[in-house]
């Protein structure tokens, strides 16, 4: 009997864990905006086998803390060329959860961007 309960507990934990993983995975996605006429800033050392191959990538991975009276924020980034080629924003389950439980006062930010090539 004890063993059966233990198995049920294990099964329940496993199911819950699987559900959380599945939910987390499906809750992670990226949105990428690309500049139609822009040329990306090159990086010959970037050998990633994806969209960013050969491009100079800047990453912002941080958590922004807002005070009680603050409702909005913006990040100030600098591109030598003065423009962005692409911006990718990643939404994660953890980020959404963090924002929810802190009533929007902590915002997880994951952004990748590529500047325009200098002209």
């Amino acid at each position, binding site marked *: 009997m004890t063993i059966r309960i233990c198995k049920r507990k294990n099964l329940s934990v496993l199911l819950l864990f699987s559900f959380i993983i599945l939910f987390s995975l499906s809750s992670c996605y990226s949105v990428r905006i690309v500049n*139609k006429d822009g*040329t990306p800033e*090159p990086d010959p050392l970037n050998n990633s086998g994806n*969209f960013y191959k*050969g491009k100079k990538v800047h990453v912002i991975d941080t958590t922004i803390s807002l005070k009680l009276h603050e409702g909005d924020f913006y990040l100030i980034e600098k591109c030598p060329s003065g423009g962005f080629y692409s911006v990718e924003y990643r939404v994660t389950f953890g980020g959404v959860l963090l924002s929810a439980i802190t009533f929007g006062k902590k915002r997880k930010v994951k952004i990748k961007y590529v500047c325009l*090539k*200098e*002209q």
Partner: protein
Amino acid sequence: MATTTKHAIGNWDTFHNNGPFPTKVLYKTSLEGKGNMPSLIDRYNDAATEIQRLLKDALDKQEGFRAYGSAWSMNHVAHQKDNMHFNAEMNIKKAILDDEMHTASTFKRENLFFVQCGNVIKEIHKFVFDHGKSLKATGASNGQTIAGCISTGVHGSALGVGAVQDWVVGLNLIIGPNPEDIVYLERHTEPALNEVFAGRIKARVIRNDGLFNAALVGLGSFGFIHGAVIETEDRFLLKRYVKKINKDLAVELSRTLDFANSGFTVPGETDVNGKGNTAFHYKVFINPYVNDPEYVVEAIYKKPYVAEYPDPLPRIKTAIYRDLIILFTKIAEKYKNSIPKLIKVLEKSVLPAVDLEATGTLAEIFWDAPYQGPAYAIAVGVDHTNSGKALELLTRLAKDEGPIPGIYAMRFVKQSRATLAFTQFPITCMLEIDGLIWKAKKNKIISMEQFCKRTIEVLQANNIPFTIHWGKTADWSFPGLVQYMYGDKATTWKEYRSALLGEKGAKLFSNKFLEDTGLNEFIVNTSPELVQSIA
């Protein structure tokens, strides 16, 4: 001062992973900031000084030196084991001034632009568009640098224009570390710019058709291409149609390119007598493993420019999972009989949608390449009158000795005057096989190397004169290949190269690709006239 960073990279690879190739050093040169050096010409000359410093360093060490840009060539043509130079940050561009035009020039000043080596096609598109102009033709995409395009003969399917090097009218080369090693080349029969321009870039001028034509498709071995003068034309639009037509009709049109008398016509693209207009671009797609009675063809027609037209690019662009492509390759390597089925599955992602119609500028129609992963491409050039026969032979090769994971296509390019242009026939049919790099394993699938070798053997055995795209996958060590393809032209190219660079310079700008093809041969005692201006 232009600044160069040095990276001990160990290995270098192409954009589509056709390497890796052992490499000691990668240099990356960035231009001086505009705020510190506002004059374009000053920054250009400053970069030239920096390149000459690097060349001297390589010469002192008795090493080689090779520039590259986007690394889109799918073989080792851009590679050099000692010193590689990434030049894509050298991207000055300027319009030509009145006082820079040669008095005998037949070019319109407003059509000419001077662009530095590292400009990629996409940024040149934008620059000339902002001056009310358009490039004449490009490759199927826009990521190559201008120097890379010229050096390897990048082409699209512009029947009446040619490849990228065919709209280049002047070349600025740096061939060594000394002041006289900065040269500006033009055709003597078609002068474009004068000594005022040459003086501004501190170059000595050589106007000589033979030298210019040899240096154009120079394989990165004719010195460091620092800049090029390009000819553009007024802005225009292209209207693109994708149709599925009877394959005999598609092949017959490839053979004749006689649009007026072909059974293939596009409504709205006919003359008053109902005869088909000649397309700006014609391309045929072929899946060699299906017996479909129809081929997908792409026909593009040139139109006057108007400001208002629907955006030809979709608002949302999706891409196939990279892991799925890798999985397909693994399956193909293990179970070769799966290849035809896998190609059929991928066909919709690879081929353009049938009955598609879109209008846009050259830059929009041939926009960014979507695929960034490992890939190979085999491309042979044959006279378009031989296109049907060559297609039959090479599809049969894939069926009999393959299969291989790739899809076939034919594009058609006007003849080039460049000595080593693979577009050397009156109209060259570029017969291409594009696909995913595979490795032959124990299931007896033919290896890529063997397939490339057999391609050459089959064309030779059937007496079809051919060339091979310099930037694509091939058995470049095949005995006598270059001599077979180009005959005396190969010798002419080597003579001009030897005369211009001298023995030390020829060695400096050589690499294994040149050695494999035999084009590294230095010819002694060439006539000084080869590198002199012709009045």
